[in-house]
Every structure is written in structure tokens, then in C-alpha cells.
């Protein structure tokens, strides 16, 4: 085992005891800091708080009385703390504190800290600025006011003055459409940290943002946190909950770290994905727990219009030591991936009770720039995930999702609207308590999945497995305890794959060019 520092801020830090487990440590352990703090923890990734800025620390991990690792770090320097109450915020859960908090943010300078102390601070939309450290104390809640009239709008597109181009601000499901600004919004900012033990609450509910959720009412629903064209952003330790739509949505941004977050939306809340990096690069998601009403993590790169215009894939992303619970997919690639996705590494994670575990979803119409490649899922443990592994190239999303063009199994001509799926590797995956099928893989007949590797994959089923659709596509019937059902693949490799207790054949292949089994 090895104790490693992942990040150190002004007043908090994040460490990982590598080798102690996936998200949960196999055995609880204790962290002891050089300032005398002792923290008992049962997670592989842990945050420590109450640190002094500009101070050197040593931290040691003990398990069963034995030292198992240590690390040293220095906290960042802090020039001044700006308490939002000093700027007029009430924090009483009644007043609108938007202006006061915004004032504190705009007053901050490099190395100052904007402190949100314990209390409930109601806001419409807060905008970040560069070189900001926003710190939410334990018991601090920033809560969104669910009132459209108070929310600014980010327009989808505005034509430039010369009429030759356009500027994009808002977005909805991969298209440049009008949307309300987020509860927290960053537009073209860099070097921002939002950290602490506090909560950002979207204030959404069935009678507010989640009502008539399929309808655009003036503009599309806001995100909890929206980051557009931002760089060097760190979110650490905070809880994000009750988001009006997607919770954390970085858009055309880069160098992002999401560490030890807790993202929670009710299981029946609509479109409340946990994290949706869209056309982003260099993203780290570590030690984060997500339980939401849609996909926990959904990697995106826009729909075809944005892809052709900006040609910005999402790439270089790692997801490690995370826990996904409930939700539709634990880690999903798609469906808005028209600009492509590459170099994604998901490893050492736990999934529990999601509909699907590792999921790739795409469809005709995403376009020829939609190339998925170099995507690896390794060392994942799933429990009670209904269908652990899904690749669906016929996903019936969008208003035309149920059209014949999207759903037909006939071989259509390959044209500028046809997407590609390259190499996908599933390695060291253990799924227990599975229900519908071990895997459902459906590639397009006209553009098959290039390469699919299952390496050390083991699936077993729930005692009384339920029956349901393994994938959201036309003419996908209900299955119960089915094995690996695979179609539309060029090269399939199965290495040490065991399926225990399925009804019917453990492997059913159709339209697969080559199958290598060891």
C-alpha cells in the first residue's frame, strides 16, 4: 500500500491509500497529521480539513496499528479570508444572497479565500472569476432559488456583428440552445477551486425545475455547476445535490480535477446526470461518490452540428476510486459524442444498483467525426447492476430517436452521418447480482465496432433475477439472466470470461467477423 497526496489547497488536502481497496477501503484505517489531527476513515480517498495555509504537514496512515504509508505536503498560501456575511449575505435561508456572494467573489484577489460559513444562502446564479478559491464550511449550504424570472439566460447562439459567424453560450443535450445559467457558472475562467465540507443545493423539486421537464420553458433547465471554456478547475470535498438538470457540466474546458465529491439527486429526478464532461480534456475524477436519477458519469462531445463546427472531442480522462450508486448508467460514454471520445480510463471503481454499469451509447446521425477509441475499463466491481456491460449503437434518443433511420437493423450506406466505435477494453471486471443480461453489445451493421476485448470478466446473477430491456433501443426485448449477447463487431476477444448461472447460452454472437477465445 502507498499513501499519496492527490491535492493540497489552502485549508484542506486529499490523500489516497492506494492498494487498500476500490472506493471503500477493505479495512478502515486512521490518518494522523503532524498537527495532531486523527481521522478515522473507510474510504480509499480521504479529505483532511482544518489545515493552516502555508504550512508543511506530514500525514501517516495506520491500519491495524501498523503504519502503511506516509506523505508530506505544504498547503497553499492565503492572503485574506472574505466572509460573505461581511458583504451582506444573510445565510438565513430566507433572503436572496446572490448579490452579496457575487460581491465577495468579485472583490477577491489571487490567494484570497471567499468563505461561505455555516448557514443557508439562497441564490439565483453565481458567476465565478479567475484565481478564485471559494470555500464552503461544514454546514454551509448554497441553495438555488427555483424561479425562472430571476435566472439569467445563456443564449444558444448569437450571430456576430458581421453576420459571418456566431458565438455560443448555452447548450442543451449537445446542441447550442438557450439555457438558464447554472446555480454556479464559470465562463472563460481559470485557476478556480471550490472546496470544503459544505453543500451546493440546486433547490430543484417536482413542483419546480423537474415539472414538465421535457418542455423548454423560456430556456432549458440550468445545471447546478456549469463551466464553459474554463481551465485549471478543482472541486474538492463538497456535496452537490438536487440539481435542476445535469449536476456538474464542464463544457469545452480542460485541466479539471473532481476530488472526493458527493453528488446526489433523487433516483426519480429527470436528466440529473452526475458529471457530464463535454468536449473537455485532461479530467480527473477521483474518490467521488455519485447517486443520481440518470447516468452517474456521462462522457460527451456534443451533437453533429457542434462537432462539425468545433471538432473538439473529450479526451484524456481518468475515473478512479469512485462509487456509483443507483442511476441509469454508472459510467457512460455518450450519447452526444459527435466530436469523438478518446483515451478514457476508468479503473478501481465500485458500482451498485445501477441499471447499467459500463455503457457506450450512440446512434446513426452522430456523424463521421464521432469516433470512440482507446477506452478502457479496468478493475471494476459491480453489485446488483442489471446489465453490467452495454454498447448500444441504436440508442433511441432525441426527437427522431424512434425513426426508422435510427432503429433499423438493415445495413444502411455509410455516409457523413454514420458514427464509429473503435477499441473498447473491459478488463478485470466482476459483476454479481446481475439481472437482465451479462452484456448487450449491438454495433451498426454498416460500421461495426472495431475491436472488443473482454479480459478476466466474471458475471453471476441475482437469486431471483428480474426481467427487463438490457438496452434502450427499438426491438430489444426483455431478458432475464441472459449471457453475453453480441452483434455487429469486427474482432471480439474473450479471455478468461466466466458467466455463472445464466439462462440459455452464455455467449450469443451474430454478425461478428472474428471471435478469439482463450
Amino acid at each position, binding site marked *: 500500500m502507498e499513501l499519496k497526496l492527490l491535492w493540497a489547497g489552502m485549508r484542506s488536502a486529499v490523500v489516497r491509500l492506494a492498494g487498500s481497496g476500490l472506493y471503500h477501503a477493505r479495512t478502515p484505517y486512521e490518518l494522523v497529521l503532524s498537527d495532531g489531527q486523527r481521522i478515522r476513515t473507510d474510504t480509499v480517498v480521504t479529505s483532511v480539513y482544518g489545515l493552516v495555509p502555508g504550512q508543511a504537514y506530514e500525514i501517516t496512515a495506520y491500519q491495524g496499528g501498523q503504519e502503511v504509508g506516509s506523505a508530506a505536503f505544504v498547503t497553499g498560501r492565503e492572503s485574506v479570508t472574505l466572509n460573505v456575511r461581511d458583504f451582506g449575505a444573510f445565510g438565513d435561508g430566507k433572503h436572496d444572497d446572490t448579490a452579496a456572494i457575487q460581491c465577495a467573489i468579485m472583490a477577491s484577489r489571487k490567494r484570497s479565500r471567499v468563505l461561505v460559513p455555516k448557514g443557508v444562502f439562497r441564490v439565483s446564479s453565481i458567476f465565478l472569476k479567475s484565481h478564485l478559491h471559494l470555500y464552503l464550511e461544514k454546514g454551509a449550504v448554497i441553495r438555488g432559488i427555483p424561479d425562472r424570472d430571476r435566472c439569467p*439566460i445563456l*443564449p*444558444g*447562439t*448569437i*450571430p456576430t*456583428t458581421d*453576420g459571418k459567424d456566431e458565438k455560443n453560450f448555452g447548450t*442543451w*443535450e449537445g*446542441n*447550442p*440552445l*438557450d439555457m438558464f445559467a447554472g446555480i454556479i457558472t464559470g465562463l472563460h475562467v481559470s485557476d478556480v477551486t471550490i472546496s470544503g465540507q459544505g453543500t451546493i443545493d440546486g433547490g430543484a423539486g417536482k413542483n419546480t425545475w423537474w415539472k414538465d421537464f421535457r*418542455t*423548454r*420553458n*423560456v*430556456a432549458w433547465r440550468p445545471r447546478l455547476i456549469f463551466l464553459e471554456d474554463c481551465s485549471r478547475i478543482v472541486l474538492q470535498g463538497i456535496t452537490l445535490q438536487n440539481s435542476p438538470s445535469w449536476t456538474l457540466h464542464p463544457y469545452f474546458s480542460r485541466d479539471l480535477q473532481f476530488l472526493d465529491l458527493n453528488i446526489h439527486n433523487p433516483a426519480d429526478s429527470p436528466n440529473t446526470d452526475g458529471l457530464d464532461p463535454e468536449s473537455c480534456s485532461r479530467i480527473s475524477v477521483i474518490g467521488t461518490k455519485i447517486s443520481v436519477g440518470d447516468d452517474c458519469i456521462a462522457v460527451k462531445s456534443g*451533437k*453533429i*452540428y457542434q462537432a462539425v463546427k468545433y471538432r473538439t472531442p473529450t479526451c484524456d480522462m481518468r475515473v478512479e476510486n469512485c462509487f456509483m450508486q443507483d442511476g441509469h448508467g454508472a459510467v457512460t460514454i455518450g450519447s452526444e459524442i459527435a466530436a469523438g471520445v478518446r483515451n478514457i480510463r476508468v479503473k478501481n471503481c465500485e458500482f451498485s444498483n445501477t441499471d447499467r454499469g459500463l455503457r457506450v451509447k450512440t446512434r446513426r*446521425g452522430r456523424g463521421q467525426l464521432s469516433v470512440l477509441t482507446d477506452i478502457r475499463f479496468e478493475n471494476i466491481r459491480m453489485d446488483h447492476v442489471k446489465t453490467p456491460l452495454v454498447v448500444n449503437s441504436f440508442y433511441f434518443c*432525441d*426527437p*427522431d430517436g*424512434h*425513426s*426508422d*433511420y*435510427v432503429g433499423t437493423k438493415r445495413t444502411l450506406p455509410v455516409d457523413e452521418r454514420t458514427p464509429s466505435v473503435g477499441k473498447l477494453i473491459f478488463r478485470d471486471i466482476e459483476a454479481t447480482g446481475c439481472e437482465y443480461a451479462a452484456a448487450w453489445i449491438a454495433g451498426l451493421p454498416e460500421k461495426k465496432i472495431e475491436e472488443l476485448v473482454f479480459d478476466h470478466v466474471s458475471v453471476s446473477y441475482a437469486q431471483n433475477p428480474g426481467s427487463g430491456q438490457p438496452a434502450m433501443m427499438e426491438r430489444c426485448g426483455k431478458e432475464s439472466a441472459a449471457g453475453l449477447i453480441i452483434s455487429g463487431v469486427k474482432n471480439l476477444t474473450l479471455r478468461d470470461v466466466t458467466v455463472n448461472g445464466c439462462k440459455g447460452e452464455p455467449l450469443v454472437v451474430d454478425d461478428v467477423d472474428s471471435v478469439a477465445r482463450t
Partner: protein
Amino acid sequence: MKRNRQAESSLLLGLSDMVQEDGALAGETASRAAAALAHYPGGDSWMNVLADFAAQGADQQTSWCGIAALILSGDEKNTLLAARKAQSCWQHIKVSTPQDAYIYLPGLVLSETKTGTRGKYFDYLKALQDVPAVSEEDLALVMETAVECMEWMDQAVYEVYRGFQAVFENCLARLSRMRGPETEALQSDASVLFSSCALLRACRLGAVLTSEYAEPAEKTCARVLKRADESTDPLIYAASALVYAEGIRNRDYRDYGRKNGGVLWS
């Protein structure tokens, strides 16, 4: 453009007469004007005119489309009737001229939005892209067709939406090159009215800057609107009503923003 109740009464009379006409382009234009004004205060009379167009469209299964009027009259039975008619029309008609495009495509798009799977939008866009447009009148008709399709489709099928917008922008660019102060007197009334209507609608949809295009469009068509009352051409009369209706909606959008007159997709 401000509401002028007197002018509206006069327009209303003229359009009511047109229900009995068999000039497909004029009738279709008139029905769209009636639809635009039917939702305004005091719009009951316009709704009655629209209902008459819808009944005409229901009777004439093949010779005149009337799909848009059937749906816009707001009756559920009519919407289903329009959907059936759209499917049968699409199999038989050829959209080979800008007039065909204007008569059929917006109604087909509207029908697909109300009752279809949205899968046919792409076909309708291709049909419009393939229509040859050379003269000013052609370009103006194609422009107006494109923005009407934009307004009536589900914007979330965004690549198709922007495809229609690209057709509009292309026609606008070509029309702008053809026109100038020296050619103003030579511009046909129909081309002025349809292109002005298209620009006002495009402003409301956010496809072009209102600050750049709205007032010039209103000024351009003002001279034609002044003499529209005396026109004996039913198409000019109908197009005047359409521009008037769109001008009112544009004014509301400028005054009250997106919550009143701005296009909402749902």
C-alpha cells in the same frame, strides 16, 4: 409594426374571399397569415378564416395541400387528418419549384412535428436544398419556406434546423447581391413581401440580428404595404397580410422579449 385594427378588418375581408379561390400559392399564404393573427386578442375572426381554409384543405385531398391550416386550426381531428394527408402527399408530389416548396414543405414539417417521428425532417430539408432558385421571387419564397420550417420543426433536431437556416442565409446573401438602391424600383412586390416576412421571422428566431435587419425589412416592405389594398393580385394581398402578421409578432418580441412572441419549442 404596430397593430392597425382598421387595416386588419380590411385584410380580413380580403382573405375570407380567398378561401374560395383555387390559387394554391395565394391561398396557402393567406391561411398562414390567418394562423399568425388567430392567436391575438380579437383573433376569433381570423380563427374562423383559418377554419374555413382547414375545411377546404380537408375536402381537397390532392389538388391543394392545406396541411398547415388543418393543424394550425387547433382541432385534434384535423391534426390527424393532416398527418394522413401529409403522408399521401409526400408520396406523390414533386417539390420542384420554390412555389411547391412554399406550399408543401412547412405544412409537412409541421405535420411531422405534431404526429411523426421527426425522421422525415431530413428528407424535407434535402427537398428544399434541391429546389432551383434563380430569380428574386424564387429566392424570397425559398427564404420564407426555410424560416417557416425552422419555426415549426422540433429545434432539438438541431442539425436539420441549422440546415434550413443555412438555406435561408444562402438565399439572403444571394438576394442582397442582386439588390441595391438602383434596383429598388425593379423589385417585384411579391419578392419584397416574402423576403421581408422571412427576415422578420428570422429576427424573432434569433437567426439574424434584430438590430441589423428588423427595421430595414419593415422599411423595405412599407412602400408595398401602402398600395396592397388596391392590388388585384390575390398573392400580393395575402403576402401583405402575412408580413403584417409577422411584423406584429416581431414588435411584440422586441418589446417584451422571449416570453411574448419569442419562439418557444415544446
